[in-house]
Structure formats: C-alpha cells, structure tokens
C-alpha cells in the first residue's frame, strides 16, 4: 500500500514534464526520422540524393571545418582567461566572471546584429583600420569566413571558459608551488602539472563549443556570405525554399547523428549534466 502510493506520487510528479517532452521533442524527432525515409522514389532516396550532391558534401565539410577552427581558437583563447580567474584577487575575479557570464544572458541575435554594425564597410572597425594606416581604404569585412568566425567565437567563448575554470579551480595550488620550488621552469610546470590536471576541463570545453558550432544558424546566416553556407542554413533552404521535406529531414538526421556521436564519444570522459550546468 505504502509502496504503490509512493510510486503513484513519483509518476504524477514526473508526468507533466515527460508529456511536454513527448509532444515537443520525442514525437517530432521520431516523425522527422520517418519522413527522411518517406521519399516516393524509395526508402533511402533522400539520403542517396544527399550523398551524391556535391553542394551537400561541400557544406558538410565547410560546417565541420568552421566548427573545428572555432573550437580550437575558443579553447586556446579561453584557457588563459580560465587560469586568470583562479589567480586574480576577489574583486577582479567578480568583474572578470561577470564579463564571461553576462554575454550568456544576451540573445545570439542581438550579439550577431552588433557585429554587423561593427564590421560594415563604413563601420568603426574599418574606420579604425584606415585611420591607423593598416588599410588604405575601407574593405568589406562582412559576409566571409572571418566574420562568421568572429561572431561564433564571441558567442562560444564563455562556454569554453567555464568548464576549464571549473577544472583549474580544483587543482591544489601547492602542486604548482612544489613544481616551481623543485626548480621546474614555468613551461615545464605548465606542461607537466597544470595541463594534465586540467585535461578534463579542456575536453568538456572543446565538446561544448564543437557541439554548439555544428548547429549554428543565426550567426552564419547574418554574417556569412554565399561561400560560408553551413549545414543548418542548407536545411533551412530545403524547408523554406525547396519545400523538400524528405531531403530536409535526411539532412537533419545526419546533423543529429553527428551531434549525438560527439556526445557519445565525450560521454566517456565528461559528465552528461555538465552540458547544462554551465549556465549556472
């Protein structure tokens, strides 16, 4: 009697959230997979169409290349910031942490629009480059790989800083002092002590940024040109312009599988919950 009522309450508590997840997530994704196999010309027609399509291959390669480059840059730039967060005084720590956390509250759309304003032909970045003599006359800084990279890096850096900070803050400071006290150079201490102990944080940061950059839509759509087409923009054009649902679904399933593959590989060494905990 006691056990059944305990079970009943647990189920009642869980059911609203599970219901929402079912109608918004599980069923729509399941339908998407089915639609990808629903082409009138055969089960795998949409997939074979994609794999034979040169544009799809280019876009897939493009998306992965951008994701890898942005992930590498984000980790390399964010590591010193995460390290500084463990070293600075309490007051500076609060200011620096606020600089890292604040952008997370602001919509990606607003931040991308800000980069459009900054990078346009008559914008402040061009003015600065011309007046300092680096450029002879304003050039088009928008709608290329670099502008997409800058915009994405701006969005992704906080996601790279936070996990690495979480790892670095747990390292016993005496270990670094011991290493230096025993005569190791700064470089040796970094390579032999700091880096190995923060590897897990680096892996988490890289997974976050890579996973997020695979699915970027707003930033490349507004800051990129025709040559920086990403997988999400291609999926959007399959739906909105070509109205080809099997093709759009098949491309979505491929992106989904790629994302899940990244999660599955990273799950071996990082905790699943850390994906969402970064926001706190």
């Amino acid at each position: 009697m006691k056990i059944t009522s305990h079970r009943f309450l647990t189920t009642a508590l869980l059911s609203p959230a599970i219901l929402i997840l079912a109608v918004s997530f599980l069923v729509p994704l399941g339908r998407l997979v089915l639609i990808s196999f629903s082409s009138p010309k055969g089960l795998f027609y949409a997939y074979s169409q994609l794999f034979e399509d040169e544009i799809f291959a280019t876009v897939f390669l493009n998306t992965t290349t951008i994701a890898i480059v942005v992930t590498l840059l984000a980790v390399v730039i964010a590591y010193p910031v995460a390290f500084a967060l463990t070293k600075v005084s309490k007051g500076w720590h609060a200011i620096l942490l606020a600089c890292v956390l604040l952008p997370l509250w602001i919509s990606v759309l607003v931040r991308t629009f800000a980069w459009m304003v900054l990078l346009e032909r008559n914008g402040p970045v061009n003015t600065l480059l011309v007046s300092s003599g680096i450029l002879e006359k304003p050039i088009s800084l928008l709608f290329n790989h670099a502008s997409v990279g800058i915009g994405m890096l701006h969005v992704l850096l906080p996601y790279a800083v936070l996990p690495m900070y979480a790892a670095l803050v747990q390292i016993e400071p005496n270990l670094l002092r011991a290493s230096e006290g025993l005569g190791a150079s700064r470089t040796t201490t970094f390579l032999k002590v700091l880096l190995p102990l923060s590897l897990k944080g680096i892996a988490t940061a890289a997974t976050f940024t890579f996973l997020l950059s695979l699915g970027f839509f707003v930033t490349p759509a507004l800051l990129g040109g025709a040559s920086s087409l990403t997988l999400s923009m291609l999926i959007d054009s399959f739906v909105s312009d070509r109205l080809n649902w099997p093709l759009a679904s098949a491309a979505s399933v491929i992106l989904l599988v790629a994302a899940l593959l990244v999660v599955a590989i990273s799950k071996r060494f990082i905790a699943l919950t850390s994906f969402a905990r970064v926001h706190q």
Partner: protein
Amino acid sequence: MNGRFTLNIFVALVAAFLVFPILAIVPVAFSAQSFIRLPPESWSLRWWGAFFQDASWKLTLVTSLKIATLTTCVSVLAGTAAAFGISRCSPRSRTLLTGLFLGPVMVPTIVLAVAMYSMGRATGMVGTITALVIAHTMLALPFVILNVAVSLDSLDQRFILAASGLGAGSVRIFRTVTFPLVSPGIVGGGIFAFVTSFDEVVLSIFLSGPNVKTLPVRIWEEIRLEYTPVVAVGATLMLLLALIAATMNRISKNK
C-alpha cells in the same frame, strides 16, 4: 613577472572583446539618420517613436512578453515537479531520466525547429501561442530541473528528520521546510526560463505566423529586409531585459 603582465593584458583584451561589442547597438538606436551607422552623425529619438507608434512592432514585444511569461509558468511548475520526482527515483532511473530531460540541450536547434515545424504543420499549430510556449518550454525545462535538483541535493536531510521528529506531517514538512529551502533554485530556474524564451530565435522563426510573431523574429526579418535603426531599438529593448534578468538572478543568489 613579465609573463604575468602579458597574461593580464591578454585576459583584459578578451574580457573587452566579450562585453564591449554588444554595446554597439545602443548608440545606433538613438540615431537621427535613416540608415544604420556607428557612430551616428546626429542624435534623436525618432526610431524609438517609430517603434512605439508602430502597432506591429509593439505587438511583437507584447507577444514575446506573453510567451515568455507562460513559458516561465509552465516550465517552473513541470520542472520543479520533475526535479522532486527524479529525487524519489532509484539511481538507475535517475540517470535515465536526467539523460532524457537533457536531450533538447544536445540536439542542434535547427533540427528541433524543423521537427517541430513539420509536426506543427501536420496539426495546424504553426503560428499559435501554444506551439511557441511548448517549444520554449522544451528548451527551458532542462535548466529549471537542474537548478531545482541542485538545491534539492544540497538540502540537509536532518532538517526533514527534525521536522518529522517534532510531529510534522509530510505536507507540513514540504510547506514549511523543503519548499522554502529549494525556492532559490526555483526562482533561478524561472528567471532563466523567461530569458531563454525571450531570447529564442530559431524555433520561433519556424513556429511564428503572421499574427503571432515574437520580437526576435521581427528583428530577424527586418535585418534582412529594411535594416533601419528601428532594428537597433528592438535589439536595445532585448538587451535591457536581459540585463534586468541577469541582475535579478544575481540578487536572488546573494540573498
């Protein structure tokens, strides 16, 4: 010493790179010209007037606030209940449920958007408030659940034992002990849910219709069509709301 100095300069530059570019939109909103240029040659409030005199812009702001409020209510209620439910499960089902609830965080947003759009078309739900609230709730739910779960985990079980030993029933324990102790987690999750909904673009682009359109979707459309400083007014309003939410979150954490 020298290395330390270089590190500090580098970190300061990265911090500046993170914060200052966002502010670029604010002066544009106060421009007197009809095109977007930073810095504006002369200043005025004409685009603020244009925003608030245009019924369609105002409506998108109201729609966004409405959807964000509803999303907050639904995700806080369902998410808090789910966090309590998960805490009553065996470790095995806990892992399973956490994985399930975190699903939407790991799937690329465009995939979620296309999936929901296709489903919405089949059920005639595209362009309804309900569809947008459900979509935003899906995105906000993991954060509410995790926030509440963290407060639940850190709850000292001795308080509950003490209350029980003093003769309180389970309802009274929940009302006077458990709930007050996890409420900061609920508030934090709620603030985050509101902002998640108010900021969301990709799902909203696909699920909005001519009559139900959120502010970010209107900004997105306008950037690609007209590109006048009225876009900056909309973006400044979004920035303002995000800053208020971040401040409220800060205050609620310090209490």
